[in-house]
């Protein structure tokens, strides 16, 4: 992948400026149609989800009091995992987006909600709602692209440490909530800029630590203690539930912007961007997950990532309803509505992580027969000087061009 602006086949070349504004107008109308019909049924929906979550969580925690008994351990762990996923995805993420603010219920409001997650709601809202949703998929602006630790684009020069990328990515997935907290805190950047003494940063860091403290105390001290002799099994169950939730939300989020074929954009390209162009960037920079109603709920309707990115503040339960209209709009304007089942999207995203952890073209040129010489090339690129790397990279790029030409002929 490369930023859209540098592609040889630009997927939006056929659109005129007028087309783009017409798309924007149609999307504004779709948005308004949902706002005009928001009401009691939607309110009932979110209250129902919240109620179900609380009952599952309470029930699972109760079952886990007997976690020494293996069936109780299994049932309780599954229940708690489901509860935590619901809480983070369909409830927390969406409430913090302000999707339910229109109800004016102070208990279900983006300004009062706190979620079961290491990152305090306040900090997450800034990095997610303001930065990620505004600068979606703009390389160098949207840190969600690789969370500042990954190579996400062919145009970023390959460095030997990128080889570790699949491993970091997996560790990040396991401890995703802490990764998010560090990322919302801009921890890496602040350390790099030696600004950790900044009082504003310190205040935020303290808030994160307090939040983590409360979360850890709940899952790894209080509830295990309440289980008495079953302290360790309950602790293990809670750890597992957090792990499952982290892996799940990481997978869903990878699917949103990371599968092959999702476009990224140049920093320059968003200067003076119109509303229509902003919409278009969201359309091209997001990918959906197809699946059942249960799948949509468990992903917090981020399975409708395209719809969510177009209208981040519309109630999540309405995305499914507008999805056919959005898809029709994509079709009419000759755009690629990127959707696939979860395993396929996750696979695609991980394929990309692995591909980009290697020098450009390496994976494409490697097969069983040439594996050893290719490994030798990789070894030289890893251990060699930047000059060696550049030379070998040129060879790889030339090789790719040749194979593609041959395939085309």
């Amino acid at each position: 992948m490369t930023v859209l602006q540098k592609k040889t086949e630009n997927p939006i070349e056929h659109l005129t400026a007028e087309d783009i504004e017409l798309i924007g107008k149609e999307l504004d109308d779709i948005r308004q149609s949902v706002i005009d019909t928001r009401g009691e049924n939607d309110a009932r929906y979110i209250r129902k989800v919240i109620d179900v979550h609380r009952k599952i969580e309470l029930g699972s925690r109760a079952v886990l009091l007997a976690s020494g008994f293996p069936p109780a351990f299994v049932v309780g762990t599954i229940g708690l995992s489901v509860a935590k996923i619901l809480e983070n995805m369909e409830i927390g993420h969406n409430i913090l987006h302000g999707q339910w603010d229109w109800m004016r219920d102070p208990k279900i409001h983006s300004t009062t909600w706190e979620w079961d997650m290491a990152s305090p709601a306040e900090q997450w809202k800034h990095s997610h709602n303001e930065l990620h949703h505004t600068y979606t998929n703009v390389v160098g602006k949207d840190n969600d692209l690789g969370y500042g630790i990954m190579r996400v684009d062919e145009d970023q020069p390959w460095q030997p440490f990128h080889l570790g990328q699949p491993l970091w990515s997996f560790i990040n997935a396991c401890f995703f909530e802490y990764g998010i907290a560090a990322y919302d805190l801009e921890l890496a950047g602040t350390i790099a800029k030696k600004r950790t003494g900044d009082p504003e940063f310190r205040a935020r860091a303290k808030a994160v630590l307090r939040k983590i403290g409360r979360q850890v105390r709940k899952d790894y001290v209080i509830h295990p203690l309440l289980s008495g002799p079953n302290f360790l099994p309950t602790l293990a169950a809670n750890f597992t539930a957090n792990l499952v939730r982290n892996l799940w939300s990481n997978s869903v989020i990878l699917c949103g912007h990371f599968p092959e074929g999702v476009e990224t954009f140049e920093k320059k390209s968003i200067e003076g961007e119109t509303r229509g162009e902003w919409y278009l960037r969201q359309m091209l920079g997001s990918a959906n997950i197809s699946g059942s109603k249960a799948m949509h709920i468990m992903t917090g309707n981020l399975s409708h990532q395209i719809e969510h990115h177009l209208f981040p503040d519309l109630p999540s339960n309405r995305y499914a309803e507008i999805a056919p209209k959005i898809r029709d709009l994509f079709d009419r304007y000759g755009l690629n509505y990127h959707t696939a089942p979860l395993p396929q999207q996750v696979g695609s995203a991980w394929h990309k992580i692995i591909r980009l952890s290697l020098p450009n073209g390496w994976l494409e040129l490697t097969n069983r027969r040439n594996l050893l010489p290719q490994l030798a090339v990789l070894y030289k690129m890893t251990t060699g000087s930047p000059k060696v790397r550049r030379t070998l990279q040129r060879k790889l790029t030339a090789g790719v061009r040749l194979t593609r030409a041959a395939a085309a002929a």
Partner: protein
Amino acid sequence: MRLAEAATTPLLPADYLDMVNPLRAGADLRGRIVAVHRETRDAATLVIRPGADWQRHVPGQWVRIGVDVDGVRMWRAYSLTSHLDRPDGCISITVKAIPGGKVSNHLVHRTQPGTLVHLDQATGEFVLPSRAPDKVLFVTAGSGVTPVMGILRNHDELTDVVVVHSAPTPEDVVFGADLRELAAAGRIRLVEQHTDTAGMLDAAAIAELVPDLAERATWACGPVGMLEALEEHWSAAGIADRLFTERFRPTVLVTGEGGTVTFTGKGTSIEADGATPILDAAEDAGVLMPSGCRMGICFGCVLPLREGAVRDLRNGEVTTAAPGDGVLIQTCISAAAGACDIDH
């Protein structure tokens, strides 16, 4: 308790207790509607079982009730009309649906028993003094009769009472049957004015109907125009201190110029026009606001204006704040008169 909080974080133990018993002591004050009695074609009495923390009200007072209309939480104030000593401990409010009124129409026409509503404690000054006067006059119109009914039902000791009530037709008299029964039993002297056929009563006509008006303590509740006419008459007669009035909604006399209102704490900005109270404009934009009576009397909506200008919709008075002033303004009766920066 600390342990329970540590076990439920980021939720509170109350969030779980609310699932079981939302009316328990210690919970946010709520109530459950147990019955809806139709009074007239456009008025109904809602019988509400209040939460355990409900404090006894004083007859004549009103209560703010928060109800979800089309999924949106809306708060309004209504007079309490119940007997204080109902054996079931319930309270009642009586609501008249006003044309175009979202909340009143919902409450009168669409509310089902079993609905949970949100409440504040009762408040209001439209009450009898601790020693009830010997001679009383109530002047009411439309739903203005509701606090008076609340008083009549609970003050048997009142013996010399005149009620002058205006409504379009006999059928439109809220509590018509109750009032006529009280009149038949000799507890009150009832003057019903049916304005569709007989026109409006002015202050002079009331004075004619009630010759001993000056000897009476008078409580009046109804449209603003009526109240102002009465106030003028009572002042002219030199008995202004014997008249107590209750307004149901503020009168908008003037409008501001509108402007961008920024809520510093929340980091949000809205465009507010010059005719809409900042409270309404902010709520329409999804900002959670403190609110109260929505008519400029309870000060439940007060927020500091850090900088900018607002206009009091009741009298046109402009309040300005320079940076650092933090002038307290009532958002329910103030409209933006330019860009405003509010600490919230």
